[in-house]
């Protein structure tokens, strides 16, 4: 990513700051958690709103804009044909396009579905699948358009988000290290869970940025920030697959190790190749399972029904 939108450092002769950058926030297939992270910057939210003109952020404002944007934050994976068209349109409207979160950067967990599974599933549900508005799998945004920067994570880290916005505001490069989670884990003085518990941990192959949350809660990292630079997945797989004296949990089966890598960034090439080489992740079912078979109602709008106690209702569990 090039230097930011403007340089606001007040050094004489540097000239006054230009207009506030127009920022937009949009989403594709996702849980909304990454854009919620913006609203979770409680201490800084009002200043952000002063420094940036928030012109599009459907979760937070009724103001709408279809562009142009100085900065566009994009959450979610590309999962439908309409979204393919829309992301191309947005790219053309955005001076800088920043993808945020595991869905936008790696496809998210929904990207683990394969084309074959999708097809089988769709046909099982719809007798006449004349038009199904869904791509075979979910894609990271970069599969379709050029992206200028990315915030990793499921969800993104609020400090990294603030760093991005600050760097955009000041006009410098955001400091988003690409090294392993382990560095942050050791800086925090957290005992390594592989070493003390024999728990498998993806920290050595996962990009830092979360603050080493999982080891801090005494569990292994599940890789939600995706692969780090030069991730030696083969070395880690070998170590987890080998039994270690005095350790119960390592000596894992290939399938178990493969599932470990098939997480929220499991579609990232460096992780997917591990899962595939170890026998793949568990297959998705071909049939939906519902609490009860769905009925189709085609009447007019629903109306409120009777509200008084009715003896017809089941009141006891049969089990």
């Amino acid at each position, binding site marked *: 990513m090039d230097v930011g939108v403007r340089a606001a450092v007040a050094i004489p002769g540097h000239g006054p700051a230009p207009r506030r950058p127009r920022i937009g926030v949009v989403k594709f297939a996702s849980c909304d958690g990454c854009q919620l992270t913006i609203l979770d910057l409680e201490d800084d939210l009002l200043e952000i*709103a002063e420094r940036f003109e928030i012109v599009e952020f459907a979760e937070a404002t009724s103001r709408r804009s279809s562009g142009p944007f100085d900065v566009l934050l994009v959450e979610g994976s590309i999962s439908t044909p309409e979204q393919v068209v829309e992301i191309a349109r947005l790219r053309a409207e955005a001076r800088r396009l920043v993808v945020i979160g595991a869905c936008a950067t790696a496809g998210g967990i929904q990207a683990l579905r394969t084309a074959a599974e999708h097809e089988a599933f*769709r046909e099982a549900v719809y007798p006449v699948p004349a038009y199904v508005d869904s791509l075979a799998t*979910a894609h990271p945004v970069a599969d379709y358009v050029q992206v200028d920067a990315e915030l990793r994570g499921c969800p993104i880290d609020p400090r990294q988000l603030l760093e991005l916005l600050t760097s955009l505001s000041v006009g410098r490069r955001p400091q988003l290290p690409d090294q392993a989670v382990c560095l942050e884990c050791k800086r925090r003085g957290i005992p390594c869970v592989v070493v003390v518990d024999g728990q498998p941990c993806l920290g050595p192959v996962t990009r830092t940025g979360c603050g080493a949350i*999982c080891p801090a809660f005494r569990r292994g990292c599940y890789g939600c920030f995706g692969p780090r630079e030069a991730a030696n997945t083969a070395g880690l797989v070998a170590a987890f697959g080998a039994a270690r004296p005095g350790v119960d949990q390592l000596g894992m089966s290939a399938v178990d190790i493969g*599932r470990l890598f098939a997480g929220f960034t499991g579609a990232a090439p460096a992780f997917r190749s591990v899962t595939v080489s170890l026998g793949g992740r568990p297959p998705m079912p071909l049939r939906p399972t519902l*609490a009860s078979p769905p009925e189709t109602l085609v009447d007019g*709008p629903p109306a409120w029904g009777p509200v008084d106690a009715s003896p017809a209702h089941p009141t006891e569990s049969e089990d």
Partner: protein
Amino acid sequence: MGHGGDLRFQVENLTRVEGEGSLHLRVRDGVVEEAHLEIFEAPRYFEALVVGRTPDEVIDIVARICGICPVAYQMSAVHAFESLFEVEVHPQVAALRRLLYCGEWIESHALHVYLLHAPDFLGYPSAVELARDHRDLVAGGLRLKKAGNQLLSILGGRPIHPVSVKVGGFSRMPRRSELVALRPSLEEALELALATVEVTAGLDTPSFDRVPRLVSMKHPTEYPLNHGRIVSSDGVDLALSDWGRAFQEVQVPWSNALQARAKDGYPYLLGPSARISLAGDQLHPIAREALARSGALESIRTNPYRSIVARAVELVHATAEALDIVDAYERPARPATPVTPRSGVAAWATEAPRGLLFHRYVVGEDGKVAAATIVPPTSQNQAAIEADLAAFAPRILDLPIGEATHRLEQLIRSYDPCISCATHFLDLRVDRSP
């Protein structure tokens, strides 16, 4: 009548709701012919994605259904598995799970009250503009929200998709000192929550009264979160695992999401208003008192716009209960009870901020999930929203179209619909025309 003949309200992209949806309402000669809340979240197939996974993996995966209420998904899942595996968790584990849920309620309710819903009542497009004129109000709301997020962070590492919940307990439980450190922010949050009740109770709301069918959980000694039974205003009283005996999922052609209805086909209402109406006697005494002072109990039940007051009352409850849990906390020797997985059906419901969230899993002999059903609150409330839209629309036909549309949007927002949650297994857009 202001508008003769056909009238079509159309809001293509609902704002200030979580996820993506749109509203279509067709009115002919004063009669509502169609009231459709369309949901067009791209399908993500969670019920398929959890198949073949271990229960602990499922807890992490289902959180990703919703970034606004991930704890709710973790809670329904973890309790479902623990009920199947007959795990007895430590009392402090149970308490901390309530505390975790309180954190999410505080975060989610404060978000909705201050950032999403209040601008409607006060005539602003967003909290940013609202803050220009009422900075203290919004800043207070943000501090309240932050108190919830801090709770989530201490217990689970981060507010969104926390990492510590596992079958049997937690991967790590905090030291007492870590929790006690939260007391000042929680005390301030309680004051802010009490003020929120006053402010919201005083808001001018459109007059719209109806008598909805209400459904929530109920427990004899605690305000419903993780335990109790499913009850309704029309007499349902079921174990949490038996949701399917009184309710069913139906498919409507105008929405990608499945809707849930009562077995008789009628809609029902979940969420803060339902909980307060059905289980209000178990509110924390401070919240009960605030509710009484507000005089809003009856209108919370009958006027959907008053749900903002219900949320405020629950903010009081969640902060007050959080303080109680913090004060009584002692770190147990072990953060989790050992678990012996077994096969069978694991089903449970908990009270998400938006209402009852039902999970049902089939666990196979290999200890992995073989099938899953997840019924989120918004898909259950969708029919209720549409029923309200149909009932309310005739009253606003005389308003200018922009104003009328705004009123309808505001009505939808009063349900705090979380559309990314409503994305269900069957969320595929189908064009059935030949």
